Structures are given as structure tokens and as C-alpha cells.
């Protein structure tokens, strides 16, 4: 899914709700309550969607193998696929809350194990990309917003717009062909054609392993950054533009401070406050980008796992990744709500 470029810096569902605004703990309790309700609804929707599919894991288990139909039937009975719907839902909820997300017949492993294995690569990819995008977005957005209409501002907007209009996976494909395949022109493959590490290298924290993973991370990270940094530019830019109108900055300038200092020491810190919460909100949008990047580069993370689960499809695995992704977004939104409240004294005092 394309990451949505907002028309403006998106607003958190803040001041327009509810009468009480002074008690932080009540706010916290309400937000956590809402998050829990969201999570329960998520479980219901997830269960409903994935129960609609007729599936026969036994035929998937034994496909192409010389298994007689009597044996397949016996296996079906063994797997207990014939309980009533409501019973299965309760079992499903109970299992999910205790961390049992089902069993993947494709991989012969519990879904939670598979997800736990793939969590780190996705976190690494998304985390690195977010950090770089924030840094780049800040650098560019602040300077662009400080002088709206300048060449830098217009240039930054143009580049951001162009990069947002490009499909993430296509950008990844192009980078892969040019830098990773060694098949275009005479250019050899500078970066790997996919994967997270060279097979056979030592694992863990060995320096060669770290550099190996970093080398594999370059292209996927570059692709993801190219597409998402535009959002951070927009956010920082509009924050700075909002800040610029503030009277206290006039005072600072009247004091004789140089423009750059006014910007760096006074405007930016205040502009950053709301931006921080927005970063957490953007994570939900970044998941789609991360999935496509992982697929193009065969990066062994949760996104790639979701993609491979589509094949048969492996419904338990799809359900598991869907729940994990959605729960992550719920948690991030919760953090954003809390940060918004905690960081910005102006909101608190309303």
C-alpha cells in the first residue's frame, strides 16, 4: 500500500474528545481502555476474515506425496478441524492472549516462533530507515520551512513529491537491477541481490557479521528511506512554518540573534514537540512500505513472511502476522497519544 502523504500534519484525536483534560491518569486510563477495545475488535475481525476461507491443511500437508486417501482422512480427524465456530473463536482468543498464534503447516512450526524469528530483521530495517528518514527529514524540512518559497523549499517539495509518486517496490527493483545484479552495462554488483546475510558467515555480534548485514541492509534501507522521508520533510516543514508565526521568535530576533541561531535554538525545539508524536503515527503507514521492500530484496522479516504465507495460503500464519502488525500499530498510536499529552504543555493546560 502506498504510504499516504498527508495533506497536513495529521492531528491526533486530542482536544475535541471528552470534557476532562486535567488529570493525566484518567487520560491514560481512557486511552489504554480504547486501545484494549481496539485490540479485541481486531481479534474478532481477524478471526472472522480467516474463518471464512475453506481450507484443508491436510491436502496441503500431503500434496505430491504418496499418501492414500484413508490416511489423509485419518490425519484430518487427528487435527480436529470440525469443532463449532464459537468454540473455535474462544479457543482462538485464549490462545492469542497467551501467545499461541496457531500452527503453520507450511513451516511445521508454531506461528509465534516464526514471528519471533522474523521480528528482528523487520525492526532493524524499519528502525534504521526511520532514524535516517527523521534525520534527513529534519535537516531538509526545517531548512525548507524556515524560508518557504525559497529554491531549497521548492526543490525539496518537488523531490518529495516525485519520490512519493513512485511505487516503493519499483524503486527497489530498479536499485536492485542497477546495483545488485551486475547485469546492466558493465557495472558489477556492488551490493547483494537480496537476503540479509551471506550464507555461512559467523552469526551473533562478530564484526564481520555486522558489516555483512549492514552491506545487505544498504539497498533495502535506501529504498524505504527514499519513499518515507518525504513525510518527515512535510511534517517538519509545516511545524516550522507554524512556529515561525509565533511572537516569541520576534523577541529573539530583536535581541540580535542570528537567523540560524534563532532557528536552531528556539524554533526547532518547539516545532519538534508535536513532530515526535507524529513519528509514531507514521509507523503504521510504513508497514506497507516495509512489506514491499522485504519482498523485493528477500529480506527475511515479517513482511516477507506475510508474503510467503500467501502461497497456499497458510491461513494461520497470515492471521498471526496480521494480528501482530495491527497490534503494533495500536500500540504505536497509544504511545503517540500519550507522548502528545505528556510532551506538549499547551495541550495539557487546555
Amino acid at each position, binding site marked *: 500500500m502506498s504510504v499516504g502523504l498527508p495533506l497536513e500534519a495529521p492531528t491526533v484525536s486530542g482536544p475535541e474528545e471528552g470534557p476532562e483534560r486535567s488529570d493525566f491518569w484518567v487520560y491514560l486510563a481512557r486511552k489504554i481502555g480504547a486501545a484494549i477495545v481496539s485490540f479485541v475488535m481486531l481479534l474478532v475481525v481477524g478471526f472472522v476474515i480467516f474463518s471464512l476461507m475453506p481450507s484443508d491443511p491436510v491436502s496441503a500437508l500431503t500434496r505430491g506425496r504418496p499418501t492414500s486417501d484413508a490416511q489423509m482422512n485419518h490425519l484430518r480427524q487427528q487435527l480436529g478441524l470440525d469443532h463449532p465456530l464459537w468454540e473455535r473463536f474462544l479457543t482462538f482468543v485464549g490462545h492469542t492472549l497467551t501467545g499461541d498464534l496457531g500452527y503453520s503447516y507450511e513451516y511445521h512450526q508454531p506461528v509465534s516462533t516464526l514471528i519471533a524469528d522474523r521480528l528482528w530483521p523487520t525492526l532493524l530495517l524499519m528502525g534504521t530507515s526511520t532514524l535516517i528518514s527523521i534525520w534527513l527529514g529534519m535537516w531538509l524540512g526545517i531548512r525548507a520551512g524556515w524560508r518557504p518559497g525559497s529554491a531549497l523549499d521548492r526543490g525539496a517539495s518537488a523531490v518529495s513529491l516525485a519520490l512519493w509518486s513512485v511505487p516503493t517496490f519499483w524503486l527497489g527493483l530498479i536499485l536492485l537491477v542497477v546495483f545488485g545484479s551486475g*547485469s546492466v552495462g558493465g557495472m558489477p554488483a556492488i551490493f547483494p541481490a537480496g537476503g540479509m546475510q551471506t550464507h555461512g558467515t559467523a552469526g551473533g555480534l562478530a564484526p564481520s557479521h555486522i558489516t555483512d548485514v549492514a552491506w545487505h541492509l544498504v539497498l533495502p534501507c535506501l529504498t524505504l528511506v527514499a519513499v518515507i522521508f518525504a513525510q518527515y520533510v512535510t511534517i517538519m516543514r509545516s511545524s516550522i512554518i507554524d512556529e515561525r508565526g509565533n511572537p516569541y521568535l520576534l523577541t529573539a530576533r530583536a535581541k540580535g540573534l542570528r537567523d540560524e541561531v534563532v532557528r536552531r535554538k528556539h524554533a526547532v525545539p518547539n516545532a519538534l514537540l508535536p513532530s515526535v508524536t507524529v513519528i509514531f503515527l507514521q509507523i503504521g503507514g510504513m508497514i506497507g512500505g516495509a512489506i*514491499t521492500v522485504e519482498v523485493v530484496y528477500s529480506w527475511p522479516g515479517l513482511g516477507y513472511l*506475510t508474503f510467503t504465507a*500467501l502461497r497456499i495460503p497458510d491461513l494461520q500464519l497470515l492471521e498471526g502476522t*496480521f494480528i501482530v502488525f495491527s497490534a*503494533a500499530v495500536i500500540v504505536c498510536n497509544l504511545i503517540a497519544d500519550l507522548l502528545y499529552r505528556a510532551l506538549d504543555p499547551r495541550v495539557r493546560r487546555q
Partner: protein
Amino acid sequence: MSAPEQSPARETPVVEKAPSRLVPVGRFVVTVLRMPSGLFGVLVMLAFVLMAVCAPLFIHPSDLSVTQATGPLLSAPQHGYPLGTDPAGRSVLLLVIWGSRTSLAIGVMATALTMVLGAGIGLIAGHYQGRTGRLLMHVTDWFIALPSLPLAIALAAVLGQGATSITIAIGVTSWTGTARLVRAQTLAVEARPFIERARALGATDTQLITRQVLPNVMPLILVSSTLTVASAILSEATLTFLGLGDPTSVSWGSLLNNAFMQGAVTAGAWWYLIPPGIAILIIVLGFTLVGRAVEHALNARVSPR
């Protein structure tokens, strides 16, 4: 989107009707076209739509036919094939032009679905501000929490691959933004006195919504829909690339999916990989610029700075 401010000249006494839209529309279009980005965007939009609609006039079934393709298999641009050939020997240029039809069609239909869902829910939530409204907003907020691509993948896995499920998946995952915007705008519009007067005069809810609120919300929906088309085209390409679309129909996403699955990367078939992406880039850029220009024009008209 900032709520349009009222200027005193707007208030007319006695009977309130939604002001006629015809004359301002003409001026509005000119405003949009005066902006270079707006002009570029509109030209691109028209060019692609024209190309998609007229494609059957200059592309014969034999150009798209695999059994009648006579070109060399997966070869670089050469005489007669300006953008090279695909693995079946067909001209990539003609395929890209033909692919615009499916991509645009799905983009537009998904947008229509999004608009109907989003605007409908937004209008209702904004109008009925009691329990119904709050409930709808909770549902919207909760939907926003669902990450769009995993949800689309889940839907497509369940509904089965194909253009219909992609359209539904895009619609289901995109309506929340529109709903929120429309609701905010509805609230703003309903705060105006002429709504109160119409209510006092005995207008029913349906009449209020369709005759008073909707025309005022329409510009916002317009802007939103151009931007949604852009985003829907991107989503269609992504979902088809991931294999959730109909593999036998020609669309930009399926061309790229084909290229990826058939090893175009190792073969270095840049002529097969680059054109569909460039096409997507240009058309999305076009729609986005038009949307932005329309938004600026609306803002400039309503609250002149």
C-alpha cells in the same frame, strides 16, 4: 483542511438555497489552470485518460496476442520495438499503453468506492452527532489502526485473487481519511446559521444533508478524490505486484510482477522494468498535482490572504 471562513457578503436573507455552482466553477477552473503545477497535472491526466480510452483504436488484438507475437523474446529496444519486447515477444510500449486501461479503471473504481464509503460515513457521523456519530467515529478510528497492506493482503487471500478483490481491498483500507475530512467539514458547515434556519423551516435530515451540506462538502470530496485516485493507482500496482491481482490481465502492476517472477533482474531487462514504473510515476504525479492545485484554488477563493 482549514474550515472555509464566512465572509459577510455570503449571507443572504430569507430563503436559503445552496448557491449556484456554475459561474464560480468556470473561474475556479481558470484559477487551477493558471498554476503551472495545476496545468501540468491536468494535461497529464487528460493525456493518460485519452490514451487509455483511445488505445483500442491503434492497438490491435494481435499486438497483445501471445500466439501472434513475432518479436524476439525479451529483447532490448530495437527497430520496430521502441521499448523492447517481453518474454512472449510482444512490444513493451504497446503493453504499457494497454496496461493503463486496467490500472486507471481499478484506480477510478476503487476511488468511487472509497468516496461513497468515506463521504457517506463522514456525512452521517457529522450530521447525527449523538450516539450514532460517536459510534461511527470510533469505528473509523479503529479502522485507521489497521495497517492497510496487511489488511489488503488478508482480504485478497480470503476473497480470492483478482481485480474485484483488489478494488474492494483498496476501498476498505482508504475510506477512513475521507471520512474524517468529510466529517470535520460537515461539522463546520452545519455550524453555519443557514443550516439552523433550514432546520427551523422544517427541512428533514435527508434534505439537509443532500441539499445543504453535500454541495458545500463537494469541493472537499473533489480534492480528496483526485488524491485518492493517485494513491489507488499506487496501491493497485503494489497489490498486483505482490501477486494478488489477475495474472492474465495486462496492467502496470502485472507487467512488473511478471518481470520480477521471470528473472528480469538477473537478465538485466531494464526495458521491461523501467517503463511501467515511469508511467505510474507520471500519472500519480499528475493526479496529485491537480489535487493540490484544486485545493489551493479552493482555499484562495474562500479565504483570500
